[in-house]
């Protein structure tokens, strides 16, 4: 599954970068969303994928029996998902404020400091 996912993640990155290169500011935000999702998935998948063995300790035992999925990348990605959401909501509101004040959707026109 990993090679297939590698291709999928590559496509996600390509889509994210393409959107971030657009001049429209809303597309930039969408690019940001794609990018954070792609990065999370990359971290998750490079650690290796394990089917049907979540990192849980069964009731009554002190350690899981057999091999379980690596819990550390999962913890990292969990933190990353939440932070990405925080950044995204900040970015969305920022874009809205910028639009209200500048009334320009075009990043090239936002370049000047005194529009």
């Amino acid at each position: 599954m990993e090679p297939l996912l590698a291709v999928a993640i590559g496509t996600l990155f390509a889509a994210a970068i393409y959107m971030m290169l657009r001049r429209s500011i809303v597309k930039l935000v969408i690019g940001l969303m794609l990018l954070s999702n792609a990065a999370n998935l990359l971290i998750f998948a490079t650690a290796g994928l394990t089917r049907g063995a979540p990192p849980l300790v069964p009731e009554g035992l002190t350690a899981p029996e057999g091999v379980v999925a690596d819990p550390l990348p999962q913890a990292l990605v969990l933190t990353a998902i939440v932070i990405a959401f925080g950044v995204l909501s900040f970015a969305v509101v920022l874009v809205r404020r910028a639009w209200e004040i500048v009334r320009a959707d075009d990043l090239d026109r936002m370049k000047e400091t005194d529009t």
Partner: protein
Amino acid sequence: MQLAVLGGFVVAALVPLLHQWFGTRTARVLALLPAAIAAWLLAQWPVIAAGETLWLEWAWVPGLDITLTFLIDGLAWLFAMLISVIGTLVLLYAGDYLHGHRDLPRFLVVITAFMMSMLGLVLADNLVALFVFWELTSITSYLLIGFNHTDLAARKSAQQGLFVTVGGGLALLAGFAMLALAGDSWSLAELTTQGEALKAHALYTPLLICVLLGAFTKSAQFPFHFWLPNAMAAPTPVSAYLHSATMVKAGVYLLARLHPALGGTEPWVITLSLVGALTMATGAFLAIQHTNVKKLLAYSTVMALGTLTMLLGIGSEYALTAFVVFLLAHSLYKGALFMVAGILDHEAGTKDVTAMGGLRHLMPRTALVAAVAALSLAGLPPLLGFLGKELMLEAVLGASHYRGVILLLAFVAAFLTLAVAAIVALRPFFGPVRETPRVPHEAPAGMLVGPALLATLSLLFGLVPGLLDPLVDATLAGLGVPEAETHLALWHGINLPLLLSLASLALGGLVARRWDRLRGQLARLEPLMARGPEAGYEALMAGMVRLAEWQTRFLQNGYIRNYLVMTLLVLVGLVGHALLVRHTPSLSFALDVYLHEAMVAGLMVAGAVAACVMRSRLAAVAAVGVMGFSIALTFVLFSAPDLAITQLLVETLTVILLVLVLFRLPRFATLSTPAERLRDLAVAGLSGGLVTLLMLAVLSGERLPRISDYMVANSQPLGHGHNIVNVILVDFRALDTLGEMFVLALAAIGVYAMLRFHAEAYEARDAANTRRSDDG
């Protein structure tokens, strides 16, 4: 001694504190430091006079074999003595000159630091240490030239001095590196013993060029001479100290120090003697065009530095003797004359020699000091300057290369210098009394003691030159002439140098008499002067500014996508190159994929691509949602229930947030041309491909032991939790979670503030502005 020098820097830092205790007497207290160093040096004299070298070793960076070794032989002793004695006098002088000046403590801090850097420079044995002190003198002198930092001219001069000397310093660093490579040692003492090997080395020519560039810029040799007269923007004590007795002598010192190692070859002799002679004549010629007493003296310093360089170039024992005597004579009279210039400025309120006259009635002592020092500058008997000039002319007559050219230039310099001396000493003090901006009166004792002592020394050494014999011998030993037996005498009989001196006296007197008319004629040369090396410097600086502007416009253009494209392409180029050349990822993988997994991955990709091509905002957001939920499904399929839950929650919230805000946002517009889109697509494709390749490379690589094994084993026993991911988040890596909470809180505050701060506030302000401008 190292302690004294390094401690001196500490003392410099403590000056503001001293100033609080001693007030206006700080300068006098501070003068004790160089005085103590001078006394210590004097105590070492018997050892030095015996021709021995003092070694003071102190490991500095043992790992890199850099030691702060001080080497005191005759040459270093002479320079160190000049620095500390004139330093003492200058500090005493500055205390009165800047009496009551608001920034006196700042001045004292920098000049003390400068003094210590200069001492370190002449005493250091290690090339690296020498270079560090060399650059320190550049930096401290920058601060001193720009002391009046509210004055634009002072700032520009300071910058010019810094650029020229530090630019030369860069060349010097390269030269030192090559020197160390060629001689296989960083120690000057060792390098000077292997002169033959160095001169035969393949690196000799490039290293000579670099070292000479460093020395010439520092010592204001033609064509770098222009910064020195401009540096006269500094307060006069600084000019007296840095630009006559010390800083500019650093280059000369370096040349003298390296003379045994590098000197005597044809390139050395020709370059040094020609550049030196040219600098001599240029300095003297430019001097007589100025009426500002400090500029007159500054250009005559350029002339003196040229003389010293030329003498080192000629390099015969006679020339080296002349070098030592001339160096000493110049430091004594030039220090004295600059201090006199400062007294004139301080008491009469002008630096223009044509605006002063008859001051000898009002300041007889200053006039006497000025007369003695100027006689030495003019090279008239019975002063030390005469001795220096006679020896110099004698040495020139014995030059091995280009004797005629050098002699002509030296002669021109000699009679023009005589004219300068006459102008400086006669104009302000003799003739009819003139009105000056301030009513002049005799200078305070603190300002007179320095020049008086220096002038007295000029006279004493001139009358009894035998006193200098042992010093000259000891210095010559440092210059590579061991066991010299010098016998200096004032009277050498009637010979060619004496005749030349007489001729220069006549011509110089003539120039001084006709000076006013001559200046008018020289002023016509102005357009020619405007094309001098200084214009070249200005053009270079302007060019650099233009280059910076261009590259800023090109690289820092403010378009986010240009930054992105550039960063990504560099990344793809570097990482991709390393990946393909060093670590070709194997593309043979066992594909164990179930159909439902492949479908989820397909859905994910479809969502992402759809988000890019949708023309409607809502559809794009929905497509992003599809991708997000497919990712959540992937998490479910591959044993990450916690991630799946979080992803689902966050994805739902995101979609809701976007939909809420979306209708307040502009519609999608097509802003780019098809060509631009194609370019962006290429960049995006390359970057995406790189990520895929990277991931494949990681997967095909060797697995390292997992650090999470510890967490898996200890989650229940230590963390008392059955969900290992949760235990990691709140226990093993709780600090990460704390940081995450901070980020979220910050984002929440930001969002709240932006939503509260309504656009109406802006509109109200704009309306108010319009009203105000209407009223106005």
